[in-house]
């Protein structure tokens, strides 16, 4: 079995040095995906290139696998509902097409929460995917298969979607970097919507340099801002209540290490912005799934998100959207004018086990399930980019992650900061391998 480098950028370097060829690299990655999926159950369908993989282009030889939410040339995605279906003549999702135009190979479609509705990967239509770090630990959703595929090294990177944390929550449960991009930075054509005003394509990887490579391949580069020439200034908000003590300590230590220069001590806006994000989420999900709701065929997962949208007054929804630009402007001017990055929690608790966050289990705790997206949705409402990275280990060796928010289109600053943390805390080879297995 051919040994593959640990990171995407490492593989690019090996290819440039002709230590292996593009076909050899792709073949080895396909074999690895098939072998590891027997343990992790995160692949809906393995995919093959229509032609030989491009031997030129910055992504040649790089295998990725993506959440099963993207149209491809000959397949309609299964959306966590089924296996998808062959369908000729589709326009591939723009994000996938961009990666392929640069030589990247699409290795497969990955398991997800049904219709992207769920803070965990629970989905009765598929075998439960297994967290490569600790089998009993939950895999966050809805881009659950993406997190498992990347954390288990089945793929170097995965595109997911993030409407209220669906890239960042799975990243936080699997010791990955999860990037939620600025609303509009990556085109969402060819992607199944959940709430179009909030939907973003996001990236899951094991290393910050890999994230930068993938971002450069899929983003509208004319919007992406250059890296700040000055040292980044960090502001932090760590709420006094609601953080489990070990998580609070890890985040406080990290903030001190980052030389945070200002703190938000009291921030009621978080609750307000979260409410606004939920209004938009419910209202738009109801529009997307209106037929299924009316015909009584919406699954429990979809109904849990979309049904409320049918009863939310239209005026609330319109008001939430009309106020959005003003509130985002106020947020950026108050918190990200003097500072470049706002440091906030990712998950308020250690990564829970499946039994604690699975409805129907005797140990189910609805509070711990809802806590998974407590610090996520408001960022989608604001439209800003944010990245989740692991910074410490809990008592089980599972990741404690932090979330970093920046001004719109300043993803490069976030990834440069994440890269510095990665090297300083974990050395080379990415974040993930330093957590329990």
């Amino acid at each position, binding site marked *: 079995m051919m040994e593959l480098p640990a990171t995407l950028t490492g593989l690019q370097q090996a290819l440039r040095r002709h230590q292996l060829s593009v076909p050899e690299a792709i073949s080895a990655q396909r074999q690895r995906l098939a072998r590891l999926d027997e343990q992790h159950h995160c692949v809906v369908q393995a995919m093959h290139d229509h032609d030989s993989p491009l031997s030129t282009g910055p992504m040649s030889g790089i295998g990725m696998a993506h959440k099963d939410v993207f149209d491809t040339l000959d397949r309609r995605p299964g959306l966590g509902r089924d296996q998808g279906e062959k369908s000729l003549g589709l326009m591939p999702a723009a994000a996938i097409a961009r990666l392929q135009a640069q030589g990247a190979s699409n290795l497969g479609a990955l398991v997800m929460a049904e219709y992207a509705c769920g803070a965990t990967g629970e989905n009765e239509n598929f075998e439960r995917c297994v967290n490569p770090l600790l089998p009993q630990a939950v895999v966050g959703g809805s881009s659950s298969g993406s997190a498992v595929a990347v954390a288990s090294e089945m793929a170097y990177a995965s595109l997911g979607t993030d409407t209220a944390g669906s890239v960042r929550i799975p990243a936080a449960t699997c010791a990955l970097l999860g990037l939620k991009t600025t*609303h509009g930075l990556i085109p969402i054509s060819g992607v199944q919507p959940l709430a179009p005003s909030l939907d973003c394509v996001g990236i899951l990887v094991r290393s910050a340099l890999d994230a930068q490579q993938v971002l450069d391949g899929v983003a509208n580069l004319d919007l992406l801002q250059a890296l700040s020439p000055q040292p980044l200034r960090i502001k932090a908000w760590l709420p006094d209540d609601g953080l489990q003590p070990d998580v609070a300590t890890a985040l406080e230590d990290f903030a001190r290490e980052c030389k945070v220069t200002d703190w938000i001590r009291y921030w009621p806006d978080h609750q307000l912005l979260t409410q606004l994000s*939920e209004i938009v989420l419910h209202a738009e999900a109801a529009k997307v799934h209106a037929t299924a*709701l*009316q015909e*009584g065929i919406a699954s429990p997962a979809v109904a849990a998100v979309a049904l409320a949208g049918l009863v*939310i007054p239209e005026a609330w929804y319109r008001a939430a959207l*009309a106020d959005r630009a003003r509130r985002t402007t106020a947020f950026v001017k108050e918190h990200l004018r003097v500072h470049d990055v706002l440091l906030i929690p990712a998950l308020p608790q250690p990564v829970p086990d499946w039994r604690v966050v699975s409805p129907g289990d005797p140990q189910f705790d609805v509070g711990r399930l809802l806590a998974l997206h407590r610090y996520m949705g408001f960022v989608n409402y604001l439209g800003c980019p944010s990245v989740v990275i692991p910074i410490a280990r809990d008592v089980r060796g599972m990741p404690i992650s932090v979330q970093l928010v920046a001004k*719109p289109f*300043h993803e490069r600053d976030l990834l440069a900061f994440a890269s510095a943390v990665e090297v300083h805390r974990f050395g080379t080879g990415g974040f993930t391998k330093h957590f329990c297995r």
Partner: protein
Amino acid sequence: MSESAQFVTWTSAVRASLASSGIEVSDLHVRRLVKTLMRLEPAGVDVTRAAEESGDADTSSTDFSRALIALSGVQR
């Protein structure tokens, strides 16, 4: 209005709204929806003003996209 009175008012509204969409759900689901509405209601939005200022969802979306681009250039 007391919380219990609010609950009754919202319950009627939820039932009417679902009925107008031809949707039947259990009493448990109705209670959950009412709780969701009561949780989201004080969202601090001036609905009247926002409705007067806003055109439609497309207008809001365009305004928001422009705001994001403008904010990307905010300097220290």
